[in-house]
């Protein structure tokens, strides 16, 4: 769904090389990609193809070896200072000494929200991810899937304009997973100013169901193999998964993945 408006994220010939001892790992090779504001983009590809690396570059948690990267026409560093990013990491990364509620409130504390605002937002977000009754629990008392939902609530709490999620539903069972997908789409479309989502996943149906575009990547060196436009109508719900077009798109993505393995 590329619109006429100028892109929110632009990557131009971005390379990332890691040096491990004498070895060079070409984690990303000549990656160019433009993402429109409010777009829902999925990154899919085999393990080690650089999906997390790409996310970390955009989020200014790592610097590209070469190439240019602009976010809202700023450097990623400026965008980070402006608190444009909400990140859900591959692991939940909860602070074990904080209750679930306090974990969700963490970004709000740092960004200077008042205690009342924090409480209200955290309550709202926890309800959203189905953990309304678990605010006083501690992370170690939750299952892996519940912990990941806390980390999603935490990322959403301050309504960032760019939401980056690294396999957020990987630890969830199929039923919860589909519920969370529908929930995520609802949050994404409900937001007053549309959030741009970059979503990493290993699941082809998940990528197709959620996205406007699916970026298929391949490893060694990590690069973009093809980009599949997902022209399924929105709003999407469980009937979307039964459309013939859904299956066509799933097949198309699968073929893209197979091309280089």
């Amino acid at each position, binding site marked *: 769904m590329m619109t006429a408006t100028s892109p929110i994220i632009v990557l131009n010939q971005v390379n990332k090389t890691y040096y491990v001892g004498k070895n060079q790992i070409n984690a990303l090779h000549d990656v160019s990609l433009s993402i429109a504001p409010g777009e829902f983009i999925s990154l899919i590809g085999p393990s080690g193809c650089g999906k997390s690396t790409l996310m970390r570059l955009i989020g200014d948690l790592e610097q590209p070896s070469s190439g240019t990267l602009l976010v809202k026409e700023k450097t990623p560093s400026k965008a980070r200072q402006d608190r444009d990013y909400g990140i859900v990491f591959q692991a939940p990364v909860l602070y074990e000494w904080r209750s679930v509620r306090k974990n969700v409130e963490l970004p709000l504390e740092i960004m200077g929200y008042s205690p009342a605002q924090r409480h209200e937002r955290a309550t709202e977000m926890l309800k959203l991810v189905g953990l309304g009754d678990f605010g006083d629990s*501690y992370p*170690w008392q939750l299952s*892996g899937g519940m912990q990941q939902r806390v980390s999603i609530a935490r990322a959403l709490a301050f309504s960032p304009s760019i939401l980056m999620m690294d396999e957020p539903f990987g630890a969830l069972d199929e039923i919860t997973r589909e519920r969370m997908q529908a929930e995520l789409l609802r949050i994404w479309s409900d937001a007053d100013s549309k959030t741009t989502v970059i979503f990493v996943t290993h699941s082809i149906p998940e990528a197709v169901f959620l996205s406007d575009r699916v970026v298929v990547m391949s490893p060694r060196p990590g690069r973009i193999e093809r980009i599949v436009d997902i022209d399924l109508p929105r709003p999407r719900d469980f009937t979307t998964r039964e459309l013939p077009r859904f299956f066509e798109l799933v097949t198309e993505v699968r073929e893209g993945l197979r091309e280089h393995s």
Partner: protein
Amino acid sequence: MGDHDLSLPKYTSQSKSAAAQLMARLLPVTYVVVGLLCAWEGIKALWSINDNTLPHLSSIVSFFGSRSQGGRGPLLVYQMLVNALATFGVAFGGFVIGGMLGFLLALIFTQSKLLERGLMPYVVGSQTVPILAIAPMVVVGLGQMGSPDWLAKAFIAAYLTFFPVTIGMLRGLRAASSEALALMHSYAASPVQIFLKLRLPASLPYLFTALKVAATASVIGAIVAELPAGSSMGIGVVILNAAQYYNSRPEALYAAVLIAGCVGLVFYGIVAAAERLIVRERRIEA
């Protein structure tokens, strides 16, 4: 993260009554004490060790119950507890001074790799210098400079305590995972916020482990500090006196050692209790 689930059942013990919980904790200790007492008298009887080498337990107990100054003074156990309290005071002072110094050093070292490389050898080296040799220098030296007696002694205790705190705190301040830090960076948190909301809380388990070591070390330091001339109070003085009369009254030295051990135990217990209060929301092993 996943392994957390496995230990959940541990916490069902919270439903037990407080009294039952206390019993469950005291029982193993009681067994060990009874076992030790039996071993003591058993060994003594088996090898027929004379009373001067290994006194009867009963004579140690009755020593506590006897009075000083030929029967007119206060109970010896009371006198020893007063001395123990003096030692505890010095140890506590040293614990606080050493703890703050250790904390500060760890903080400086995390800020500057250069300072760490430059100073760490001296920090380690300081612990290999025999404390028995330094104690008179510091106690006498500081005393001549007009420092109160207890403070001079507390510095000796601090000399032993700052080291474990430096090492433990250094490890603790580096304990936050790179992902936990990345999360903070993604919020554009300030260095102070990162310290207060991540590094410090993440370091607490390490800090308390170090403080427990420091608590017992500070008691040793305090006792050693009491040995050089001039002290009138403290377990160190009691030990010194008892050692002089060991041939005629061995139970006095055993009694003093017992009291010294108790001071260490109590101090350790206080730190452990503080840990349970402050780090209460975490699962504490053992």
